[in-house]
């Protein structure tokens, strides 16, 4: 399942719901992305995430389907927020449930790596000197490329 939303999410509730009633699940892995208060050596007061409504949902569904093809998952979940967030807030949740841990760990890692380079989101950071758009990092491309 994928969700794109402005509101925060309850991590415990989401993970419980993901595994509820399915006793073939042996483990659930998850990654939660948070807003940091530093970018390099500059202080970040807040961040605004913009996205491309319509394409975002399409891409997240594609990425999730790809993970389900590659690994035997019983359930998966991607929640990505948009709008303004302050340091410490949750931005994104990726969770994977599988009978065994290896598939769950790998699929979770794959999902966040691919999401970072393929889902149409852009971060605007509010720093002391003003607001600026975050540049894409070559290391993110390299991380996504290793799953090809």
């Amino acid at each position: 399942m994928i969700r794109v939303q402005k509101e925060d999410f309850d991590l415990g509730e989401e993970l419980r719901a993901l595994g509820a009633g399915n006793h073939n699940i042996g483990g659930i892995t998850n990654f939660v992305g948070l807003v940091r208060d530093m970018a390099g050596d500059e202080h970040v007061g807040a961040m605004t995430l913009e996205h491309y409504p319509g394409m975002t949902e399409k891409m997240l569904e594609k990425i999730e389907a790809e993970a389900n093809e590659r690994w035997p998952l019983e359930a998966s979940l991607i929640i990505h927020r948009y709008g303004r967030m302050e340091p410490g807030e949750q931005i994104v949740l990726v969770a994977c449930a599988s009978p065994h841990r290896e598939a769950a760990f790998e699929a979770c890692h794959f999902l966040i790596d691919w999401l970072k380079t393929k889902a149409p989101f852009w971060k605007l950071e509010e720093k002391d000197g003003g607001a600026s758009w975050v540049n894409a990092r070559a290391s993110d491309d390299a991380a996504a490329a290793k799953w090809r």
Partner: protein
Amino acid sequence: MKILYFAWMRGKTGIGEEDVAPPAEVTDVAGLIGWLKTRGPGFEDAFANMDVVRAAVNQEFVELDAPVKAGDEVAFFPPVTGG
């Protein structure tokens, strides 16, 4: 044809969305960019460095040689930075 601009590209063009009717010679994304650039300094500036411009046609990532036609939704944006 509907054109969308995101992140700093919207800042440079000054608009997030517009409906355009490019001339018949415009048949692919590269041609469309060439034509959009003629419409003012903000557009020229937005497409000045193509290394940091990505495109989507009908919500699918495409290369610059991808075809475009009337009725398409074409989006321009910098490399994505979510997650």
